[in-house]
């Protein structure tokens, strides 16, 4: 168990002048579960592989437990990694796979057997110990990969999209299992995913990356409620936050052809201070509701009924699309004209249209 510190860590891929990871700074506490999330090409996997020693740290540094890891080979870092395709040794049995690291460390066969059986019990793999990986299902292989990591009792777990090869139902199950296991073991964990739901549900804190740069590093609630820029706002949450760029008026913004949205007084002040003609507003779908009068006039394009809730996809004027959550029993019909207004507790986020930076 250990703390992890990324200090201005950068990585350049060979044959490219672009930084895969650009001056990353992260302070990860002992026992914390941190999720690196971002779209593909955001550098999240590279950041993880730098920690594991599989990718060079070209600039800056990474410390594990206060020790600088630059130039330390993977085998000396005391890190266990779960790979996306599990990377189980095909020629070894499940027990041999899980015990390989202990064998390399010179742990006696009896001791090894004991630890492997303990881990197998936790992961419900006891009856598969003598099988080869080829004879296991996807979910079982995933558990073996987890087992190989926990048997070693390493300082750090690295997980690189370990659930992406599972089907949807199993993924949700395994998600909670991994999170629970990590809480119980208390091992510092860095987990990479492109799935923001995984990030929100599993992480103590979540680091959102884009183009190799850290956007925001905060708790899931903080990311959801106070995104630092339009990218984070749009990336976290499903369906995504409504983000539309609209002209500013005297008491708010104009949405669509003849509707407007009023803003708080201090937000207006900040808008006028910024001296912008247009602003990108962000409202979460669950903070928009149907209204009888006032609000924004929209036309319904699609209703997505999920049983417990419905999402109403609409447009107001050309190029302005808004999604609102609604009660599935009272959801409007297709092509119907309805009015949407901000929920009384709802928040309108304001971002600069050009940089996406948060204004208020």
């Amino acid at each position: 168990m250990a703390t992890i510190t990324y200090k201005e860590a950068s990585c350049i891929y060979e044959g490219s002048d672009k930084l895969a990871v650009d001056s990353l700074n992260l302070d990860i506490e002992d026992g914390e579960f941190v999720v690196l999330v971002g779209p593909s090409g955001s550098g999240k996997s590279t950041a993880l592989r730098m920690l594991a020693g599989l990718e060079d740290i070209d600039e800056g540094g990474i410390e594990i437990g206060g020790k600088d890891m630059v130039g330390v080979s993977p085998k000396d870092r005391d890190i266990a990694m779960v790979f996306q395709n599990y990377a189980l040794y095909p020629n070894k049995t499940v027990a041999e796979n899980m015990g390989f690291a202990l064998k390399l460390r010179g742990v006696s066969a009896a001791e090894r057997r004991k630890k492997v059986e303990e881990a197998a019990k936790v992961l419900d793999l006891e009856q598969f110990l003598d099988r080869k990986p080829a004879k296991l299902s996807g979910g079982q292989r995933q558990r073996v990969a987890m087992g190989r990591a926990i048997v070693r009792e390493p300082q750090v777990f690295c997980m690189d999209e370990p659930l992406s090869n599972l089907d949807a139902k199993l993924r949700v199950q395994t998600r909670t299992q991994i999170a629970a296991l990590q809480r119980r073991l208390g091992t510092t964990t860095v987990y990479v995913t492109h799935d923001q739901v995984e990030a929100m549900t599993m992480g103590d804190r979540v680091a959102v990356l884009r183009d190799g740069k850290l956007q925001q590093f905060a708790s899931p609630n903080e990311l959801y409620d106070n995104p630092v820029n339009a990218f984070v706002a749009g990336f976290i949450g499903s369906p995504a936050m409504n983000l539309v760029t609209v002209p500013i008026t005297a008491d708010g913004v104009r949405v669509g052809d003849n509707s407007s949205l009023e803003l708080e007084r201090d937000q207006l002040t900040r808008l006028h201070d910024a001296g912008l003609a247009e602003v990108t507003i962000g409202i979460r779908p669950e903070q928009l509701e149907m209204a009888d009068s006032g609000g924004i006039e929209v036309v319904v394009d699609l209703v997505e009924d999920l049983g417990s809730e419905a999402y109403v996809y609409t447009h107001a004027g050309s190029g302005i699309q808004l999604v609102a959550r609604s009660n599935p029993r009272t959801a409007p019909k297709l092509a119907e004209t309805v009015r949407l207004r901000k929920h009384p507790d709802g928040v309108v986020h304001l971002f600069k249209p050009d940089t996406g930076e948060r204004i208020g």
Partner: protein
Amino acid sequence: MTTTDVQKSVEAPVQKSKVKRRKFDPWGAVAWIVGLGFFFPVFWMVLTAFKHEVDAYTTTPKFFFVPTLDEFKAVFDQGVGTALLNSLFATTVSTILVLALGVPAAFALSLRPVRKTQDALFFFMSTKMLPVVAAIIPLYVIVSNIGLLDNIWALIILYTSMNLPIAVWMMRSFFLEVPGELLEAASLDGASTWRAVREVILPLVSPGIAATALICVIFAWNEFFFAVNLTAVQAQTMPVFLVGFIAGEGLYWAKLCAAATMAALPVVLAGWVAQNKLVRGLSFGAIK
């Protein structure tokens, strides 16, 4: 009632597949024809080896005759022992050398690619582009100057360098099948590169090593051009020995076939041994 119904439904797919198998498959017929076409000359060679010289020359080829071992005896009297031992020695040693050099090279050029990997691969292949005939005179001069004419070590060096490019390319394709994550996983588990290769990678590519070794054995065993030009009596190999039976006068077909059968036998055995390994490799499965 119900039990029979269940049994029927269980048996049904089995019957279906049997019916499928019995259906006439034109490609299967083509495969048999081609296969027999390849096999027949070999079969005829073995058959002729057991004939008397006179029987070998009949214009209506004889399928039924009194078999004899006389021709094999004649081959032994000609001193096949030296040639056989030379061939065995040159083939074994050169194959071991090729694997010892080629497997690490292929590993480096696949799982641990470095700068100029493509150039290195092309260099290996380019050494095979020059016809051997074009190089034989300089080779002869060199071998003669270092005093290795009619010495089996000259052939070993040449066979090693002749087979090395093929082995590197072949082994590389097998290494490329191995996911790179396996090496990474092993190194995170605390294995040195050597340990990871030995315990994780080599077992996975062993069918590939068997296939490569077999190819090298076949090429080295059957090599004729270097052998006939660079050896005389002492370092003579089987292919050169065989040619010795082609006489200007007299009957020699049966004797030649007997010698050829003996020459083919070790390679057939090597192929059979490697085949077990190759088949095991095919059923190995699920690397990914």
